[in-house]
């Protein structure tokens, strides 16, 4: 039970020891909380968080209604950084009532049934051809390779203050007739407009 804030003794204490004890208390509390946090939640590794984000992007993005594949494909092009983590994350889950399947493909031709395509940093050199091949195909492209958004990708994972964040390129997403929810944009580290072909 918290003591009521109008207690006079409490106020007197506040006046007397304005800073010192509170600072100590604050430090202790913060350290306690952080330690507790650390014990409760082992720090999520980068791939694990990214795998969860990949799957969640699917929930904040609206694909054109013409697409009517029976499954929701999350594909990985190139070297797979996730391994089993992604499969365990999406196993048994559905998006828009469609079963999620993970597909690893070695070239962009295998991406016809993909909704989300994670392009591995191993494909850095081929990125321009890949994006050109995907043009107008309503596939959400995600990657953690540097400068991905400037180069025409849609969502790029970035690290900010030791946290996995992401930047969004609204222009290319709109070209691909994908609607990104404002909620997604709200939590994006940066929202940019870099049209394709620049």
């Amino acid at each position, binding site marked *: *039970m*918290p*003591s*009521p*804030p109008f207690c006079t003794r409490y106020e007197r204490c*506040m006046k007397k020891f304005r800073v010192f004890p*509170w600072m100590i*208390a*604050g430090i202790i*509390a*913060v350290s306690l*909380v952080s330690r*507790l*946090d650390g014990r*409760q*939640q082992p720090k999520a590794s980068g791939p694990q*968080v990214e795998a969860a*984000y990949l799957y*969640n992007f699917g*929930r*904040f993005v609206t694909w054109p209604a013409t697409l009517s594949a029976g499954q929701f494909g999350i594909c990985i092009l190139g070297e797979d950084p996730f391994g089993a983590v992604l499969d365990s994350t999406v196993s048994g889950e559905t998006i828009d009532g469609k079963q999620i399947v993970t597909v690893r493909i070695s070239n962009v031709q295998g991406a016809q049934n993909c909704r989300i395509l994670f392009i591995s940093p191993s494909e850095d050199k081929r990125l321009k051809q890949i994006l050109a091949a995907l043009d107008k195909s309503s596939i959400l492209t995600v990657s953690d390779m540097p400068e991905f958004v400037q180069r025409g990708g849609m969502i790029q994972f970035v690290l900010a203050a030791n*946290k*996995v*964040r*992401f930047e969004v390129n609204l222009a290319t997403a709109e070209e691909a007739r994908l609607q990104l*929810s404002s*909620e*997604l944009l*709200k*939590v994006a580290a940066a929202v940019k407009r870099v049209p394709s072909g620049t």
Partner: protein
Amino acid sequence: MKMRSSWSYSISRRLTLMNMLVSGVALLLACVTFFAYDRVSLKETMVNNLSIEAQIIASNSISALVFNDAEAAESTLAALKASSNITAAAIYTAKGSEFAKYSGQDPRAAASIDASPYRACASRPAIPEGKARAYSFAGDQLTLARRVIFEGKPVGIVCIQSDLKALDARVKRFVSMGAVILAVSLLAALLISGRLKRSVSEPIIQLASVALAVSREKNYAVRAAPAGKSGELATLIGAFNEMLEQIQERDVALQTARDQLELRVQERTAQLAAANKELEAFSYSVSHDLRAPLRHIDGFSMILMQKYGPTLDATAQQYLKRVRDGAKHMGHLVDDLLNMARIGRQELVVRPSSLNQMVQGTIADLKSECEGRQIDWQIANLPDMKCDPGLMKVVFTNLLSNAVKYTRRTEHAVIEVGRLSENGSTIIFIRDNGAGFEQEYAHKLFGVFQRLHRAEEFEGTGVGLATVQRIIQKHGGRIWAEGKVNQGATFLFTVVPLEVKA
């Protein structure tokens, strides 16, 4: 008049009090009920409003939770600044660790992470399984926690805390409003009871004053003024007036009956007195007029006896003797009757007299009758009394001569004159051990010409005891007798003795 004013004061005050009490209690009950209901519904409203705010926060912080963006969540929470009643809010991850927080507009709370409102939200109510929200009223805070559901899965928890200032303000407003309403309605009750006083208490006060006048002055001619046409009051007053009327009628009837009775008693008394006088006169004149023929019979039979006695044979002489005895007896009868008549007419001449002397004198007079007899006289000391000595003498003479006469056949005659006290009255008794009588005929002893013995056994006229009873009754006493056959008789009479001065 003073009485009346206090009366009116009390009854109208009671009526007023009653009105005010009833309306006050009713209003208070209504107020309390309404207040309780309003409090409950206000709490519900508060919970619902907070729930809606929590829902808004929840749906706006889904992406922040999903993409682990605490800043976005905090900026969502910061929108709560618009609600001044929200003291703290926080968002937790699905696992329960803290994600973002908002610490109201309280600068003190904002100054410190550990300020009490925020800590309170940390102790948020647990949401039961399968429920979307939970809330608790604790202290002066309402804390509400709500799951953040995304695509059917919980992704976090929103907790909002609100103060109860709205509730307190409502209480204050309610109390002041209730007080005003109560005051106004009590004033109204006061005014209404003032009007009521005129229609209810006035007639009662009037009735009371009339009743008072009736009971004080015994005046049944007054009437209470009627109040209205119907209702219990009108009935009461009507019944009261009717009662008075009946009492009046009865009074008149009673008075008439009393007057008539008086008249009748006077008439009867006069008739009785006349009859009595007539009777006395008749018996006196009869006995008086009987004397003359008696004297003839007696006189001439004596002459016959003296002059022609020797020439008559024994039978004729026997007859003549019978005639003479009869005449003598009749003479006695006439004398006694005359006596009785005289006593009946006679006024008492009362003076203090000694009963002792009277008894001694009477015994002396009886000497001749006691010739050749052994009589044991036992005379107690008798009191003096106020009486007519001549008549009292007659009483003792009769009773003592009776005693002497009826002990004639007793071997050791004992005649006792004594006194005893019973219930504060003095009784004189004369006891003998003579022939006595049957107790069941005791009441006949005092009748005129009533005798319990044959004339052959004991001579007598049957008038003596009747005379004695008359004299005792004239003196305000009573006389009675006790006896058994052959075991003597006792005659007792009450007297009023003079105060014995020591």
